[in-house]
């Protein structure tokens, strides 16, 4: 039981990490970014590149160091990629949800094939020694360090994002533009700059998630696709652009799917979770934490 609880929290924290960026971008720009998963992939390949750089070029054979370095690097690289995407493509497609959906989907296909051409299909990152193995709590209960690390990383990231959104000037601006773009522009907020910054942060978070994913999976070109559907589920059920909704929905979906998987097979667990989600959205179409008052009318 504790094992299932832990697995659920672990899966939930991964989902939260991936969905955070998607959620703030979706909330702010109203764009369903189909290429979001590919920023995860970019983060993972950045980690791979940092590892190769360390072992092949710098000859630093410290399994832990490269990973610590690659965390911020993958955030920045994926963030820059997101910034480029916003500048070159999405900026022209604001307020056109269908076109932007198709355009970002096309970009995701291009990015996947690009990664396949450059890196091939078989790449993996060596597990940092400090994170392999697990914490033996009881004789039949081991909590892997890699999972604990991801839970910790998610907690820190959520904390920082909260501080950024609620304690800084940029955060206030992001929230203002999310609520009412025209009004914010009238009040002198440079909405284009806010859009760009949000894309940078959102994509960077996906990159960070990608870096963390190398601990539990391998690095393949279409790894983003595996998680994109689940993270959409989290964003939609949590309420668009709602940080607290994303956190609760992520944990909830993680826990429910792990509990279901313990009783049913993994395949049926997946079917059941989708079924539950459909029923949930029938009753709460605006997610767990819908907007109240006048902003909800928009």
């Amino acid at each position, binding site marked *: 039981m504790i*094992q*299932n609880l832990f697995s659920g929290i672990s899966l939930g924290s991964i989902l939260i990490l991936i969905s955070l960026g998607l959620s703030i971008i979706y909330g702010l720009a109203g764009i369903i970014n189909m290429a979001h998963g590919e920023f995860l992939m970019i983060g993972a390949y950045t980690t791979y590149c940092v590892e190769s750089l360390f072992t092949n070029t710098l000859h630093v054979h410290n399994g832990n160091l490269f990973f610590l370095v690659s965390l911020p690097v993958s955030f920045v690289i994926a963030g820059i990629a997101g910034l480029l995407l916003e500048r070159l493509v999405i900026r022209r497609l604001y307020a056109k949800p269908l076109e932007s959906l198709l355009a970002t989907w096309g970009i995701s296909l291009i990015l996947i094939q690009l990664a396949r051409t450059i890196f*091939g299909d078989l790449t993996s*990152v060596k597990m940092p020694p400090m994170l*392999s*193995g697990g914490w033996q709590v009881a004789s039949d209960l081991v909590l892997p*360090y890699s*999972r604990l690390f991801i839970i910790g990383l998610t907690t820190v990231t959520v904390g920082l994002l909260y501080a950024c959104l609620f304690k800084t000037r940029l955060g206030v601006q992001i929230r203002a533009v999310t609520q009412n773009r025209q009004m914010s522009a009238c009040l002198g907020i440079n909405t284009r700059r806010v859009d760009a910054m949000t894309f940078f942060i959102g994509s960077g978070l996906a990159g960070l998630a990608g870096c963390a994913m190398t601990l*539990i999976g391998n690095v393949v070109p279409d790894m983003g696709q595996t998680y994109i559907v689940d993270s959409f589920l989290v964003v939609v059920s949590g309420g668009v652009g709602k940080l607290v909704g994303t956190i609760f929905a992520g944990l909830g979906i993680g826990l429910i799917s792990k509990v279901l998987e313990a009783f049913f097979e993994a395949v049926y667990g997946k079917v059941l979770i989708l079924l539950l989600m459909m029923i949930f959205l029938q009753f709460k179409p605006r997610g767990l934490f819908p907007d109240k008052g006048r902003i909800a009318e928009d």
Partner: protein
Amino acid sequence: MIFKNIFGVAAIGAALMLGACNNGSEKTAAGGGGADTNTVKIGVLHSLSGTMAISEVSLKDAVQMAVDEINASGGVLGKQIEPVIVDPASNWDLFAEKSKELLIDKKVSAVFGCWTSVSRKSVLPVFEQNNGLLFYPVQYEGEESSKNIVYSGAVPNQQLIPAADYLMSPEGGGYKRFYLLGTDYVFPRTANKILKAYLLSKGIPAENIIEEYTPFHHQDYQTIVSKIKKFAVGGKSCVLSTINGDSNIPFYKEFANQGLTAVTCPIMAFSVAEDELRAMDTEFLVGHLAAWNYYQSIDLPENKKFVAAFKAYCVKKNLPGGDKRVTDDPICWAYTDVYLWANAAKKAGSFDVAKVREALLGLSFDSPAGEVKMDPKINHLAKYAMIGEIKPDGQFNVIWKSKGLIDPQPFFSLTDSVKVK
């Protein structure tokens, strides 16, 4: 001006594409003269792009290498072999189209290709209607035997059953509890059906056999590994894995992280070979097992020659990976297939499909995996079964080999035990 430039670029692009197409057709047009030219055409039908490319490109390389070797030693029946290479792009419908093109337009004498069972099933009617001959080099689930396909990969009784027998034997550890874990598609489902029936017939009680499937690309193995852990507490437990492709690494990583080892609960894999291990983080796989009919580490002169030749070939042709490339079971059979066909044609004195097929029956060949022999009645290969243990360098240590050649039984009656010659 801008428009002009764009047109210019487009024109260059179009010219390049045409050039690429021309290269392809010129290559085949050269041998288009038919019987009076000095070449014989064969088709190569492996995906060179898309998801299956990573596995299938190596098979194309192996076929080409065998063709080069045969051509260098004078060809077959005085003719040079000319491969016609097409790319079905991991698209099952395209496999059928491309095989039609090979058989009807290019009139090839034999085709070497396919990896997945679904691609084989989609070309099967084309080969039967046009009386073609397909050499299929990958292990598969059985339950099929067409006179137009030569199956050189293992059928269940040459891979699955020997592995189960080995694990149950005192030498293999005398395992009594089996966790059958696979990706949810036709090969694992059929393989596990056969394995389960076989284990039951050997007196393993039903409660000691668990069967479980995951979707394709499944990444989160926490729950399954903790189930296996609970299962392993019963002692003498092992996992029989038909997990496919990219799900393997998360599975093995989680397995190790939750404190399970090859000593407490070994994993016997049916879909993990040297080529997949080439770029993986093998640290977590060391000590676990795999069942195949060929390993790069086999200590035979034929194999040493083959491995060296394959590496040299990859370096010479400047293929990605170069001398880091490895050989594995499907690569060995893709290579062997070309020799089987060439030897059968020599024996028949003709490239005619019916005559080659007749000559193939009972034919034996010293392959890199040791001596193999075509069955006297069906187009399947009798071969040795082997168990390998994964080493840190991604190679296998062969720890068990069947006493003799194992006859193929594509329609494996579930209660039969393995017939050893």
